[in-house]
C-alpha cells in the first residue's frame, strides 16, 4: 500500500491541530489579558464593564462582522459596510419620522422593514457588480463606500442631523438599545443589543453550518472553479453573501439609531476596517475558504477587550492604534506561520 493517502491524512490532521492551536492561542491571550486586567483595575471585571459596556457596545459591530464573515469565507471583501450602515440609519429615522402619525408600532415596523430592504438593495448592488460583472471586490466596495456616503450626505442636506420629531416614538424605539432583560436575575441583566446579536449569531450559524448555502460558501472560498465545475451557481451564492452583509448592516443601523435616536451622515468611518480586522484576527483568512462565526466573535471580542483595557489603564490616545495594530499583526502572523508549517 502506498503511504500517500496516509501522508495526506496526516497533513490534514496536522492542519486542524494547528488551527486549534491558533484558536487556543487567542483564547489564552484573552484569558491572560483579562486576568492581568482584573488584578490591575478593580472596575474591569464587573458586570457593568464587561456586559453593559463592552458587549453591548460591540453588538452593532458584531452583527456587521457576522455578515462580513460570510462575504470573507466566500473569498470576498466589503469595505462599504460603514457607509451602508449610515444610509440605513438615515432611512430608518426618516421613515419613522414620516410615518409617526400612523401609530408607533406601525411606524417602527414599517421603517424597520424598509431599512432591511434598503440594506439588502445596497448589498445587492455590491453583489451584482462583483459576482455578475466581475469587478474586483476591493474596487467595487471602495467605490460604493464613497457613493453611499455621498448619498447619505445628499439626503441629509450636507450632514444635518436627522431626528424623529415624535419624542414618544423616539423613546419607544430607544428601548431597542436601552431595554434590559433580567434573564439571569435582577443584578445580571442582559441588554437588548446583546440579544439581537445572539439571535443573528444563531441564524448565521444555522445558515453556515447546516444548509447547503453555507457549504457552498466554503466551497467557493476554497476553490471557486472547482465549486463551479461541481455545479454550484457560484455567482448567485457570492451575490447572496453581499446581500446578507447589507442586511446585517441594516440590523446594526437599528441598534445604533436606538442608541442615539438620531442619524447623520458622519460617523462609522474606519469601522469597516475594525470589522475586517475582527474577522481576520478570529481566523477567517483574507482569501476565504475557512473560518467561521465563532472565530469572528472571539476575534472581535479580543480587539474590544484590548480597547477597553487601554481605557481602564488610562493609556494615551496616541498609543492605542499602535497596540491594536500590533495585536492584529501578531495574531495573523501566528496564523500564517501555523498554516505554512501545516503545509509542509
Amino acid at each position, binding site marked *: 500500500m502506498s503511504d500517500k493517502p496516509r501522508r495526506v491524512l496526516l497533513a490534514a490532521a496536522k492542519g486542524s491541530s494547528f488551527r486549534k492551536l491558533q484558536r487556543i492561542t487567542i483564547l489564552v491571550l484573552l484569558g491572560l489579558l483579562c486576568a492581568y486586567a482584573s488584578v490591575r483595575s478593580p472596575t474591569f471585571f464587573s458586570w457593568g464593564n464587561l456586559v453593559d459596556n463592552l458587549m453591548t*457596545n460591540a453588538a452593532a459591530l458584531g452583527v456587521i462582522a457576522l455578515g462580513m464573515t460570510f462575504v470573507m469565507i466566500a473569498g470576498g471583501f466589503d469595505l462599504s459596510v460603514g457607509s451602508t450602515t449610515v444610509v440605513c440609519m438615515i432611512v430608518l429615522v426618516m421613515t419613522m419620522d414620516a410615518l409617526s402619525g400612523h401609530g408607533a408600532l406601525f411606524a417602527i415596523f414599517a421603517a424597520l422593514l424598509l431599512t432591511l430592504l434598503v440594506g439588502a438593495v445596497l448589498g445587492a448592488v455590491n453583489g451584482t457588480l462583483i459576482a455578475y460583472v466581475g469587478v474586483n471586490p476591493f474596487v467595487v466596495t471602495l467605490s460604493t463606500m464613497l457613493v453611499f456616503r455621498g448619498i447619505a450626505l445628499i439626503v441629509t442636506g450636507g450632514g444635518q442631523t436627522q431626528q424623529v420629531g415624535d419624542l414618544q416614538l423616539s423613546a419607544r424605539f430607544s428601548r431597542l438599545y436601552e431595554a434590559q432583560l433580567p434573564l439571569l436575575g435582577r443584578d445580571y441583566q442582559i441588554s437588548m443589543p446583546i440579544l439581537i446579536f445572539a439571535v443573528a449569531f444563531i441564524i448565521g450559524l444555522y445558515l453556515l453550518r447546516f444548509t447547503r448555502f453555507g457549504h457552498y460558501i466554503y466551497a467557493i472560498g476554497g476553490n471557486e472553479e472547482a465549486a463551479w465545475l461541481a455545479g454550484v451557481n457560484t455567482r448567485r451564492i457570492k451575490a447572496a453573501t453581499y446581500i446578507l452583509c447589507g442586511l446585517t448592516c441594516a440590523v446594526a443601523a437599528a441598534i445604533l439609531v436606538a442608541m442615539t*435616536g438620531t442619524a447623520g451622515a458622519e460617523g462609522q*468611518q474606519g469601522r469597516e476596517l475594525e470589522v475586517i480586522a475582527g474577522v481576520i484576527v478570529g481566523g477567517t483568512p483574507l482569501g476565504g475558504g475557512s473560518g467561521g462565526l465563532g472565530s469572528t466573535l472571539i476575534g472581535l471580542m479580543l480587539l474590544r477587550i484590548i480597547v477597553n483595557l487601554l481605557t481602564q489603564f488610562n493609556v494615551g490616545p496616541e498609543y492605542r492604534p499602535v497596540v491594536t495594530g500590533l495585536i492584529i499583526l501578531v495574531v495573523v502572523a501566528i496564523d500564517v506561520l*501555523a498554516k505554512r508549517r501545516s503545509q509542509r
Partner: protein
Amino acid sequence: MLQGYFEKGKGAMKLVKTLSRTLLVLLLAALVLTAGCKKAGEKKRRIGFLMTLDDPYWQNMRLGAEDEAQKLGVEVTILNAKEDPLLQIEQITEMIAGRVDLVCLVPMKKEPLVRGVQMLNRNRIPVIIVNREIGEGCEYVCYTGTDSYAGAVVSARILAEAMGGKGQIVEFHQHLGTGPEVARSQALRDVLKDYPEIKPVARIPHNGERDVVMTEMQTLLQKYPDLAGVYAHGDNFAIAAAQVCRKAGRADIKIVGMGGSEEMIEAVKDGLVTGTSYQQPEEEGRSAIRLAVRHLNGEKLKKSYPVECPPITKENAHQFKGQF
C-alpha cells in the same frame, strides 16, 4: 488531537516555544505600557475628558487640560472620538463602567450626544460641556469654551467688511456634518443676510487636508476669475488657499480663517491672510478642569463660562500669541 501532536516531536515544540515567546513579549509590552500609569491604590479624583484629537487645536486643549489636572492633583483620562458621535457614546459607557468622578465632554454633535449625557445623568456622573453645544433634554453642570458659532460670526464679519460688502466668495468646509462645521456654515449664512451683494459661488468639503484645499483653490481661481473672498473653516485651510492665491498673483482676494493659530497670526501680520478669530484651546482645557475640581469640591457654579473669542486683523495681530 493536540496531544497527539505534541508527541510528534521537535517541530511542534518549536512552534509552542514561538507562541509562548510571542505571548511573553505581548505581556511585557502591556506591562511597560501600563507601568507609567498611576497606581490604582491612591484615591485621586478621576476625570474623563471626551474629545477629538483631529487637529492641533484639540492637542492644545488636551495639553491645557492635562497640565491643569496635574497642578490640581486630579487624574484625567483623554479619549479621542474622532468626530464620531456613536464612538463617543461608547466612550461614555466606558467612563460609566470605569466609575469616573466627572466627565468633561466636547460633544461631537449636538443632538446625538443628548442620549449619552442622559446615560451619565442616570448614573449620577456630573458633566461639564466644553467648546461645543449640546442639544436639549439632558442635565449638565455648566458650559465652558469658545463658541464655534460666535467665533465664525467674527470671522465672517471681517471678511464681509474687507470685501466692501460685495463680490463672490467660496467656502471651505471641514468634516461635513460635524458640530462646528454646521455652526460655521450657519454663521456665514446669517452674516451674509446683512450683506446681500456677497454671493457664495462654491462650497468645497474636505477632511482636514491642506493639499485638497490647494488643488481645489487652483481650480476655483480658473473657474471664477472675479472671486473676491475665501471663507475657510479653520486657519490651516485659509493659509493653504492664500498661498495658492499669492502664487497665482491674486493677492487681492480677501481670506479669513478661524482659530488664531501661531502660524495664522504670523500670516495675518504678513498680510497673506486678511484675518481670523482668536480661539484659546489651551485655556478651554484648563477652564474645564478648574471648573470640574470646583464642582467636585461642592462649589456652586454658574451655567456658562465663556472663553473670549476676539477678532484678529493686521492692525491688532501683534497683540496676540497663538495657543496652537
